[in-house]
């Protein structure tokens, strides 16, 4: 199995609070991994450690065989510069709970920004790619709309297209449907299902257990900064080994 993301003993403290306590995880290429758990369990923090939005206090993460944030040189680990970290982040897309589209740019410009400004793609080529991505998320007719003119579900679909625009190895989803009105959740989940079917590696922090059951290959249950249980989606969701996992799943369903 081709491992794309490998995290070993990742720890993160906010003052005396242990947000992450030696979290380890592996995600294979092409796999969809869902992380579930009560709020404050550290799932989002772990996701943000992968692309270095949060600085780890302990442990290490490899993405595509590259050690995130450091360069190994014999027996020394050198911290990477701002530019080198930016280069590592290019290959890791992220979709946020609150969309975080650039409000001063249209849907099309939001998707083109990274490819043109960071990857140096010619504008024509980037525009063509961006338009095809907008068509893929069902928003071909909204290319020239500003985010404020779009519904939450539409904004999140543009945000997914923006992440895809960078042709990433991996996309991280941080509770992508939690800020949406209930009737808009399915349109975003449908886009994510389509993306999973196309073979994109995805790590999804979510409360949508239905999505996890239908789409995820593996499900990890986290609580209090620790991984409680991890395994194939069907096993963890239908026959959890840990009583805490079972309790959480029951609580979400009721």
């Amino acid at each position: 199995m081709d491992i794309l993301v490998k995290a070993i003993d990742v720890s993160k403290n906010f003052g005396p609070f242990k947000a992450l306590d030696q979290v380890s995880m592996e995600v294979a290429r092409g796999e969809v991994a869902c992380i579930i758990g009560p709020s404050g369990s550290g799932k989002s923090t772990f996701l943000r450690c992968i692309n270095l939005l949060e600085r780890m206090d302990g442990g290490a993460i490899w993405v595509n065989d590259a050690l995130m944030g450091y360069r190994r040189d014999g027996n020394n680990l050198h911290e990477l510069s701002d530019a080198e970290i930016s280069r590592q982040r290019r290959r890791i897309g992220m979709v946020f709970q609150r969309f975080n589209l650039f409000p001063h740019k249209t849907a099309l410009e939001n998707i083109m920004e990274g490819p043109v400004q960071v990857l140096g793609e010619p504008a024509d080529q980037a525009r063509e790619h961006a338009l095809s991505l907008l068509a893929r998320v069902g928003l071909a007719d909204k290319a020239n709309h500003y985010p404020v003119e779009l519904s939450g579900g539409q904004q999140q679909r543009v945000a997914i297209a923006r992440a895809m625009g960078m042709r990433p190895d991996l996309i991280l989803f941080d509770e992508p449907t939690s800020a949406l009105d209930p009737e808009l959740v399915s349109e975003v989940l449908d886009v994510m299902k389509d993306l999973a079917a196309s073979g994109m590696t995805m790590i999804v922090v979510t409360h949508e257990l239905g999505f996890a059951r239908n789409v995820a290959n593996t499900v990890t249950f986290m609580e209090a900064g620790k991984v409680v249980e991890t395994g194939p989606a069907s096993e963890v969701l239908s026959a959890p080994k840990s009583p805490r996992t079972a309790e959480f799943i029951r609580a979400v369903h009721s």
Partner: protein
Amino acid sequence: MSTADGMSTVDRSKYEIAHLKLVPKRHIGRTISAAVVIVLLLALVRAFSVGQIEWSYVSQFLFAPVILEGLVNTLIMTVAAMVIGIVLGVVIAIMRISGNPVLSWIAIGYVWIFRGAPALLQLMLWFNLALIFPTLGIPGLFEFRTVDIMTPFVAAMLGLGISQGAYTSEVVRSGLLSVDAGQYEAARTIGMTQRKMLRRIVLPQAMRVMVPPIGNEVIGMVKLTSLASVIQYSEILHNAQVIYYANTRVLELLLVASFWYLVVVSILSVGQQRIERYFARGSKSIQASM
């Protein structure tokens, strides 16, 4: 039911009011205060018309070459000082919010010192720099006599620009703080470096917050340049003074100068509205007005 019917006939006549004549509310207080203000204004106009103002002098000097030359110098100084002020303001604001404690403290110190002394005093300090530093330069490489460099133009530009930078940096900082943290994160996740993130994502959004106060500062600077008259920079007030020292028509020349200040400020106010509209693209307020 019968009582209800009886009630409803009474009610119906009570609720039929469409045919009644509407008598607007009378604003007696408003009428009186408007009348008082108009009378006072007329008195003021009359005072000016019977006062000993030779309006012919005003019209004679309104377009005099010396005055227009002064106007151009005022505009040049406004632009020069504001360019220095804005560049310094952006640099100092970024230093202030950077993670580097040394830069941050230098930025705080800069704002403290240059906001702490009157602009006029700072102008005079620069103009008299030769008293403590007779020469400027890097010893061995090049050296100039300070009096040759510190012309009224340079002294005024540095004095006004550097003190303006202290104020503008606070405007820029409030603009940067107004941008949501999620925008910084989104820019980072598409692989932007710090500098590109500031230039492409953060500053354009901060501009929406920064333009009104910076427009205010530009308008303030147009008038602040009049301080340069004290160190003999020939801006419009200085040139008006030169004329009235000769012909003693003090008030007429001051009116000429104030006319031109008003014209410039009016034009700038219109320009500010245009710029605001540009940077408001993609925000709710502009959508509402479109």
